[in-house]
């Protein structure tokens, strides 16, 4: 399975994603420069974390105008697999590839720590190897991960199974105390209606090697490999 990791000016997790795909998953991977328009050789696009264009404005608000984003939209429209992690998630929201928007964390500070996530829908290309209700321990690192959307939209997303991951406590209980950033309904990760586009604030690439403290992020990578039949 051929991965492409998109590099926006200011991306800073692109090497981490590349490392995990290459060294841990053993899959072919290349960087995609933000001015590229041809993604024909790729099976899965990764929009990595970072501060694209500095994110001095709303996170992701400028990156969505990058030339590559037109190609990403076409790629997604054709059913291609797209995952946005942290800043990548914010960019997908700004680009309209995923519903909703981000606000600053309720603490108004950047937060970097391990959190627990409950898998809400295992019937997606991103979670097929997980079980519904499974608890994953994966780190977050963001200042603007407070997911928000209108109540009606949220209800619709819930009904369609678009809420994929929710912040929870170690036992899997979704509680206010386990919500690190104030996200609506503890939402940590969502899909589009076609389930081929996935955005999440936690960093699965940071939980893919034992020595880094957790390998719970692997289930996401392994799911996508399985979905693509790789």
């Amino acid at each position, binding site marked *: 399975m051929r991965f492409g990791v998109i590099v926006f*000016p*200011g991306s*800073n997790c692109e*090497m*981490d994603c590349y490392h995990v795909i290459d060294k841990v998953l053993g899959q072919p991977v290349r960087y995609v420069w933000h001015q590229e328009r041809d993604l024909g050789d790729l099976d899965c696009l990764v929009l990595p974390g970072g501060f694209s264009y*500095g994110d001095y404005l709303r996170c992701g608000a400028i990156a969505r105008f990058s030339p590559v984003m037109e190609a990403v939209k076409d790629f997604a429209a054709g059913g291609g697999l797209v995952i946005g992690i942290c800043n990548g998630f914010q960019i997908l929201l700004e680009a309209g590839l995923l519903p909703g928007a981000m606000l600053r964390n309720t603490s108004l*500070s*950047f*937060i970097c720590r391990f959190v627990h996530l409950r898998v809400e829908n295992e019937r997606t290309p991103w979670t097929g190897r997980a079980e519904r209700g499974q608890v994953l321990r994966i780190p977050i*690192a963001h200042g603007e991960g407070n997911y928000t959307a209108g109540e009606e939209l949220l209800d619709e997303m819930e009904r369609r199974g678009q809420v994929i991951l929710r912040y929870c406590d170690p036992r899997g209980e979704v509680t206010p105390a386990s919500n690190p950033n104030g996200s609506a309904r503890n939402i940590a990760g969502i899909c589009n209606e076609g389930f081929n586009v996935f955005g999440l604030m936690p960093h699965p690439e940071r939980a893919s090697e034992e020595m880094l403290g957790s390998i719970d992020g692997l289930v996401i990578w392994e799911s996508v490999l399985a979905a693509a039949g790789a």
Partner: protein
Amino acid sequence: MTELYEELGLTTEEYHRIIKILGREPNRVELGMYSLMWSEHCSYKSSKRVLKMLPTRSPAVIQGPGENAGVVDIGGGWAVAFKMESHNHPSAVEPYQGAATGIGGIVRDIFTMGARPIACLDPLRFGDPSNPRTRYLVKGVVAGIAGYGNCLGIPTVAGDLYFHPCYEGNPLVNVMCVGLMRTSDLIRGVASGEGNAVILIGNRTGRDGIGGASILASQEFDETSASKRPSVQVGDPFTEKLLIEACLELRSRRLLVGLQDLGAAGLSCACSETASRGNVGMRIHVDRVPLREPDMEPFEIMISESQERMLAVAEPDKVEEVLEVCRRWGLNATVIGEVVEGDRLEGYWHGEKVFDVPADSLASLGPVYEREAARPPWQDEIHRLDWDFLQHPRDYNRVLEELVGSPNLCSRRFVWEQYDHMVQLNTVIYPGSDAAVLRIKETGRAIALACDGNGRYVHLDPYRGAQIAVAECARNIAASGGLPMAMTDCLNFGNPEKPEIFWQFTEAVRGMADAARYLEVPVVSGNVSFYNETSGEAIHPTPVVGMVGLIGTIDNRRTLAFPDAGLNVVLLGETGEDMGGSEYLFVVHGLTAGEPPRLDLALEKRVQTTCIEGIRRDLILSAHDCSEGGLAVALLECCLAGDVGARIEVSTDLDPLVWLFSESQSRFVVTVPDHALEMMESLAKKKNIPYTVIGRTGGDRLVINDWVDVDLEKMRRVRESALQDMLS
């Protein structure tokens, strides 16, 4: 009437020296350049002679002091570059931007050497946390470090944080950066090759930070400090991130002859230093410098401290390629001059010569002073500690609770969770342990990073206090399994023109030098920050040490956490009556008094090598340096980190208060499994160090004889919530 040179901070003597060098009166531009380059901050005119005491070499040292950062070989064809710097005064004036641009500056020093920055460390000192201004400063500084460092994608993995009223008006914001490079990728800040192009890369030049080095860094503070705000630069981490990537690409493609960052004294410093190091001259066309404000004068352009700028030297046939790389990263890059024969740094403004000075007269031949040093008369006074006047506590549980909830000992999680400490996927021991440990993906080895510096000890005895700073930092590295390799330092002191301050400085450097030499940790880079005073009151003399250690294989790393129940708790080293300068005295009695703990460097070294060898042989499963707060606090920290209790039983002639809270040096709390106990004991015997099995892990309480019996969950709540509560 004051002369212009006086307003710029030069003495009459220095002014005459300039006239002698030039054989004429300097013009306005030249005067501005000299005033900055000869400021204390840039010239080290007071400290230079004293710093010569420090050992700077070892077989592993590739680059010692004198460059933008020190470089040390870590094996397998790889090296680390590192350095520490201060941004104290800018942070006191504008905490967010002061701290942010501090990160920016130190990070540039590292990638200037050709290394990819892989970690930042942040030693911080503030006044009393009950003061609202302290809370404002702490929040601003931490947010500034987070805002800039997180954006760059460089993990902030360690640091330390102390509070003491002496830092009330003058907080310390020290920043250290560590970079990784192939040994063959080393670039130096040297201009050479007549005809080579001088290229300015990065941000446009504006009026921000004009005179930062002389105004902010080389003068004391007083009530008018807020009016100095325009001297603080404004950071742009996005441009810095692009600069990192562009410069590392230029390095990898071997397009550069030399590279230098622009920091204090801006273009004046970068041009004169690179030319001086390369024994060449340089011609600068000042009018070609891209400006943010069109009406800037040559004088302002040459001394502006606008951030995120680099000066590159490249051969003429590589210039187009250099410019192309920069363009692709969206960066300005402009050829502003060329390397010329001779030793003159010349500047032109639309064809007219505006300065013409010998480059090394700015960079390396500035004045050097032999300042007067005198032991302050109050030094003996503060050594006096009369225990008869202090009430002996009855309830040690309560003392322990008070200590772990106190500003200097409580959990720092509230701070380091605001820093991205994981990005780059190398952090295998997170903040909160004795040292952070980063794997080196390319070699299978790891490096340990720590920083240290207890200003109270140094205040009480500058020589011994500074020795302890080095010894304790090395101990932190050893506790994580690392062999201390080399260090950097940031020397924060008051006004060196005062004899007692200069005595503190001289004694502290002598102490650091002796400890560094004995422990075989050369000093490869560093920074001196003088004039840390507010309205004539100096801070405690605060040398801060940053150290890098090497761990042969990643598995040989340890944290402080008790890993399991049923393990022997062992004390390496010995507890004595070392209550002077302790946290106990400070927290419980509000005192900074007595003599700091004794330090026997020979014992220190033996204890450290015992710990390192015990870890390497898998005899030791966890290790923790026992320092501020004493054994009781160290044991509790091990319990909380591992979420497992311990029962400690000791027979001792010491007063329980001393056994629990004395800050004797050269001690580790380690855990040893039953099957390894005998081997550990014989290792300790062979190394001739005191060794005591003091108890066993298990349960959910920490029990020490009938002196202490505390519930871990309760202690965790106290320790974890304290800092956030103090600051909000």
